[in-house]
């Protein structure tokens, strides 16, 4: 089972590593991020899609962006196209 991005999942008292965190993202018309958590995006290093489990009732459709912010910080953010929200995630 896949927990929707941004919700806590526990198995007993175990918890998942690299759970997505909600992010504040302003996007360009083409869907690529323009500002992440109020910082301007200076470079999109890589972009990829993850489409999975489309045959189940919990499909996953994410558009990932590896970005460099104005302060030089690296971040990986994705738009969950199932729920229409942005998240950041480590270990992507």
């Amino acid at each position, binding site marked *: 089972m*896949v927990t929707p991005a941004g919700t806590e999942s526990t198995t007993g008292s175990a918890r998942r590593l690299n759970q997505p965190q909600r992010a504040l993202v302003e996007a360009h018309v083409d869907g690529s991020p323009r500002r992440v958590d109020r910082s301007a995006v200076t470079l999109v290093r890589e972009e990829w899609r993850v489409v*999975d489990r489309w045959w189940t009732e919990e499909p996953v459709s994410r558009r990932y962006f590896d970005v460099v912010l104005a302060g030089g910080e690296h971040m990986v953010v994705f738009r969950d196209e199932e729920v229409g929200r942005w998240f950041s995630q480590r270990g992507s």
Partner: protein
Amino acid sequence: MFVIASIVIPGFELRAALRERPRLQAEPAALAPEPATEALLGPVTATAEVAGIRPGMRLGEALATCPSLQLVDPDPAAAEEAWEQIVRRLEDAGIAVDPAAPGCAYFETRGVERLYGGLEPALRRALKAVGPGWDARIGAARRRFAALAAANVARSGQVLIVSDEHTREFLSPLPLTLLPLAAGQREELQELGITKLGELAGLPGGAVAERLGPDGRRAWGLARGGSSRRVRGRKPAAELLETLEFPEAVGNELTLRRSLGVLLDRLLARPERGGRALRKLALAARLVGGGSWRRTVTLRDATAEPARLRAALGSKLLDLPAPVVALTLEVLILAESVGSQLELVQPEGAELRAHLREGLRQVRAGTGSGSVCTVVEVAPWSRLPEQRALLVPRDD
């Protein structure tokens, strides 16, 4: 009889971050939340307060209230440096200071009262030593918490002395925000109609402890004036630091780890160390965007072994939020002794496992059940990063 004084500089981190940008001091500005933390504002400027912005406000709410609000990135290294300079100026004035946190320090006045001709002249001298532009204020009382409360009530540049017999009376009308209580506990008290220190102090201690636990019992004790524990001045820190400046910003973990190794080797070779092991270190970096980053590491066993130091400090490099242009390693505390008793036989097998269990038990005792976890890979092939591994608590 001794008197404890507390020096307080409100919003110290913001003031330190604005030293480089003094123009912002007259504008609505606030310290931005740390990356990867809850989006709550830090200290704010006086102009921002006039515009209705309060420290601890949610970022979205603050920007809606004051759209011209300027967010200032935290600069912990600059704050640490500025605070160290202030503490040294106080020490140069003959005051044995116990720095509690950046922007807050305690000292006993008995030693300097004779030097400066009385309590108030000594406190005025301490204010002068802090220097202009910090808006410091001083509270003095027989008890540490009463002195801190007085300093929080005092205006900029003011010295407020509370006599022991008037301590309870002085504390009584003050708000609960002065107490080191979690927001939830403070709200719980407010729901019970308790909003002032005097109202809390009037409750039975046992009932407060039962309702709010040890933190509540401690807060109750503070509301009654707190303990009259003496203040011990710090031992002046040795200037033992090494810096490496990079020709261009470095974000590569391998390069950073190698740089850390070079800094460690240089530090361990410094003659001022006198063969003593390192107990507490600080790793700081100047970031490419102009901000800074700093982490302190206290070693359970003081050591001068490069491999152990590299292991303890190397993991901190993963927290760096951006590429760095300079990396600094500083020794904050050196061990007192030169040598340590080594084991004749290296532990192994069951003995080593027993050591590990004991270490984990100590961590759990300090941080609570569920704090020691094992990473269990469950689907390392998954395309979804959060599906690959679980953190499973170890309570064995």
